[in-house]
């Protein structure tokens, strides 16, 4: 997956959790949770969807690395290289 594919994947997962999520003004370096008004339960679902769709095991201590769209992409890029 390219970096753009990974970004699309993340946004697609978020849209599936909250169909009213607005991505137009999303700053890729600001926390997703604040910008999209996600709570910790929604956030867990992003991790769970990644696990289900791409068999990714993301340990709880790595969750902070998924905070922004860019940090998510950085974290997932090596893991989804072959995907």
């Amino acid at each position, binding site marked *: 997956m390219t970096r753009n594919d990974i970004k699309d994947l993340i946004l697609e997962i978020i849209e599936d959790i909250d169909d009213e999520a607005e991505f137009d003004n999303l700053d890729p370096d600001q926390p997703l949770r604040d910008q999209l008004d996600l709570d910790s339960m*929604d956030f*867990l*679902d992003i991790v769970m969807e990644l696990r289900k769709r791409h068999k990714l095991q993301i340990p709880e201590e790595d969750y902070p690395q998924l905070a922004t769209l860019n940090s998510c992409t950085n974290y997932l890029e090596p893991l989804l290289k072959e995907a």
Partner: protein
Amino acid sequence: MQASFVVIGGGLSGLAAAIRLARYNENVLVLERHSRVGGLNSYYYRNNRLFETGLHAITNYADKAAKHAPLNKLLRQLKISRDEIGFHQQISSEIKFPETSLLFSNEFDELQQQIKDKFPAESDNFQRLVRYIDEADPFREQEYRSTRTVLSSFLDDRLLVNMLLCPVLYYGSSWENDIDFKQFVIMFRSLYQEGLFRPAGTIKNLLDLLVGKLNHYGGTLKLGTGVRNIISQGEKIIGVTLESGEKILCKHLVSTIGLDETRLLLGRKKDNPDDRRLSFVESIFQVDRQALNTLPGDRTCIFYSKKEDFRFEQPEIPVCYDSGVISLPFNFQDLQSGKDSIEVRTTHLANYQQWFKAAEDSTKYDEMKSTHGLRACTEVEPIIGGFSDHIVFSDFFTPLTVERFTGKHGGAIYGSPRKVSDGSIGYDNLVLAGTDQGFLGIIGSMLSGVSMVNKHILSKL
């Protein structure tokens, strides 16, 4: 047989827990002892129609825009759309004491205004109390705190303390005359600040929806499948033995049947056998349409006490009518179906032991049932108006009925006075969810199933 995840109990918390597990995992199995799901909130057929058990009204009403309200959180977690439920808000409810009454609705301002009008000296104190409740974090681990003591530190008028407590205790206290302040905060928000609603259909429609979700995600539900014991090895759960003798091995176990009920399956003793567990009786009166001429058309629930000194404790008689809840489930906004079959429901505190003793002689038990069924009607008629001439059908649940159909020891619908808020009872792969985890009501019990599975299982996989 093997399953990755076993959930004991197909009530609302068990179904919600199982849907969460099945959404992200394979091999999820729900074991329900009865032939029907729902636990405390189920249904049955009599007189050619469906009767709900338990459901008066659902707390935690929230508009769609309140994204982080418990109701909307829960729906997102289970991937249920609001349209699949259909929301009918309450009209108004009343707390009725001998000297005065307070109305509340899904607009919290109404209760604040009522307190200003009826207890002018307490209005500012009540505002301070509300601010204190708004700032409280009921999900932080904390020792039991008496709500009476907290309320009395803000409010001088004991009558107002009793009146505010009455609906909260009736809708969810497993303690006599009081409730843990953490739970009070949750209940205050869900009952007074958010408010009451009913789904468009019956509880059956809601349960069918949940079972449908479970199946959609590949989970399995086994009805009529009781668990005889939980097999453990040290602090690890290996599986369960069914009442049929069959063994099911599992990696994770979620128990929603209650703290003591779970401990007994583990071969351990009850946590505290001397705990007094509160039990109730419930009457259902199906009445004809003419009763609408006399019954109130604008009250959804009435929480009453005939005495200023409201007691919420196990009575020394089979049923105590000094206080109770009267539910008029046809009084929700725009609820068309409700008008076809009008019901009056009443709930009163009961003495489990006396019903248990009476049951040794089935004639005596049946006699007691019919006496108290009629008595409930005459006790509440002075409050809501006459309806006895219009009764088409009536039924009466004793604490034994509740125990038989829900498995709750002592017929205690709100479970043990001891709550395990983090859901762990000393095993690596066993989580307690539901009543004794500490969340209450239909929305609360489902959120309990969801949050315990999120916290202890999904985030650790």
